[in-house]
């Protein structure tokens, strides 16, 4: 029984983290049709920015509560800066090109940013555990639960609700939906597609950086942490259906629970389980669980 609870809680925490990372990726793909490999770089930069900010803040002994705010601000700031530069300088040139070509552009950017990260922060690892430990923990049925992790799950839940509302209820969300369905028709009706693209990319970048920033207190922040994240987020997005928000949520839950199950029951299969479940889903639903039907173009 305790194993089951452990699997569910671990799975939920992992899924929450995956969701925050994957939703930015799926948003950018859904709107811009760009599979953004550089998302892993947003994540890594977010983690480093948060670790630096936490270090500076807690060294001064300021109140703990502000520390969480610092994490958020650091992530948003770095996400906005990076997203703006990448979109304006590089991606703008390749809109309308073959999807695969754009993937390769973002792959090149990812490679470059990986090293820029090392140039800025060096190769030494950093830790920024204070927000995690300060949040404390309690035990449920003999199982320690961290308040920070619960907060993470709560945050992911809020994010899911907020993004759904933003898309369904706000003007920008409706414009976004129009662009997702048909970019050219939307443009013909006077939607400023170029601005929608920029905003989407910025939001996606901030979400990626936020994913990294929220993880920073839980891990030792080391170079190369973006590499693994990006394939994981791909797996989540592929399972859910590329470009689908609900899909990202369900995909994150599936991957999170499967991984937690594997970690607790057969630890050797941890990585294997994630990609096996992805392959399994794709066998039956090649376009992912939540994708729209595509017309056959002859």
């Amino acid at each position, binding site marked *: 029984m305790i194993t089951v609870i452990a699997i569910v809680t671990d799975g939920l925490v992992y899924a929450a983290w995956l969701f925050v990372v994957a939703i930015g990726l799926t948003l950018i793909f859904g709107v811009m049709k760009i599979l953004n490999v550089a998302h892993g770089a947003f994540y890594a930069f977010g983690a480093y920015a948060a670790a630096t900010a936490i270090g500076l803040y807690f060294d001064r002994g300021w109140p703990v509560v502000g520390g969480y705010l610092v994490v958020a601000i650091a992530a948003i700031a770095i996400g906005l800066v990076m997203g703006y530069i990448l979109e304006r300088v590089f991606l703008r040139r390749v809109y309308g090109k073959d999807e695969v070509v754009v993937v390769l552009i973002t792959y090149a950017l990812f490679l470059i940013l990986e090293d820029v990260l090392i140039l800025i922060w060096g190769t030494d690892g950093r830790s920024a555990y204070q927000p995690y430990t300060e949040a404390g923990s309690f035990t449920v049925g003999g199982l320690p639960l961290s308040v920070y992790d619960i907060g993470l799950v709560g945050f992911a839940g809020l994010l899911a609700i907020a993004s759904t509302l933003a898309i369904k209820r706000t003007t920008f969300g409706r414009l976004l939906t129009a662009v997702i369905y048909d970019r050219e028709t939307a443009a013909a009706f006077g939607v400023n597609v170029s601005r929608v693209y920029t905003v989407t990319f910025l939001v996606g970048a901030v979400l990626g950086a936020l994913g990294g920033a929220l993880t920073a207190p839980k891990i030792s922040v080391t170079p190369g942490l973006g590499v693994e994240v990006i394939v994981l987020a791909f797996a989540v997005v592929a399972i859910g259906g590329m470009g689908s928000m609900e899909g990202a949520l369900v995909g994150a839950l599936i991957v999170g629970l499967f991984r937690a199950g594997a970690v607790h029951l057969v630890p050797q*299969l941890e990585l294997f389980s994630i990609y096996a479940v992805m392959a399994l889903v794709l066998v039956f639903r090649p376009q992912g669980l939540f994708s729209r039907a595509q017309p056959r173009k002859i």
Partner: protein
Amino acid sequence: MTGSRILLGAAILGGLGAAAPFTPLWLISLVTLAMSTGLVVCGLIILWRAGLVPFGQALFFATGAYTVALSGRWFGVNDAFLLIGLAVIMAALVALLVGFLLAQYREIFFAMLSLALSMILYGVLVKSETLGSTDGINVAQASFFGMKPRGPGYTFALFWLALGMVFSAWVGVSAYLGSVAGQLAGAIRDNEIRVEYLGISVTRLVHLKLTISAALAGAGGALAALSISHVDPQMAYWTTSGGFVFVTILAGAASVPAAFLGALLFEVVRTIAVALLPGGWQLILGSVLLLTILFVPEGLGSLMIRKRANAAGKGTA
């Protein structure tokens, strides 16, 4: 492909082989490694022309490399030719199996699913002690038809073997690309459904292309394993696949020799970058990739072909 071009190719490779004893050993190792990458890229070209970008070719590369390592360790197989043959067969078999699934996908989905499959292999390799776990396995020095060259002789022998493999791959892949099945690649990329209307099964064709490219990747993996004398799970990681895609972009899918030149350029750039800027070689690599895509989207090989076409155009005018 004309006889004179085959002769020319044979002459160039023969010249390289003859020059080997007068070349520093590190350079020979580097070129051998580049040729193993070139073999994989050769296979990538076959898929690339059909509009497919495999982001998981490391699956077959690692299969080939581990086949060499494990055949030596478990069954005592020691002959280089036999090892490479086994690696090719294993990689092709794996492709034949996963092809039933993979051949149904196109574009990004093909790229993603092949990526996932290679990551499955990575996950298995990292976690299983019998397969060497994260440390990998050392590969014993191979023999060549009973001969056991050691020291510099071994490096030369491997280099000559690599030249032979490059020659066979060049002739074979050029022949395939010129065949009807090979020529259909462009049609598949342009409009698959019309190809189906011609009464050709695109799925089966893609399956075949995947198997051929996997066999080449297996050969490349085997050569790399023999040349480095070590295999590790990194060979199955997605960044390895990314490297192959990188070289394909650099070289372009237009010509087979360009694949090997591209691979050589890649290894040289990487070696220089690592030497000059130890922490910055990805930065250099990424910049080269970015500039290539933005300014020479058809690859460096296309420059040669364009030049040749221009010359031919002037000749007729």
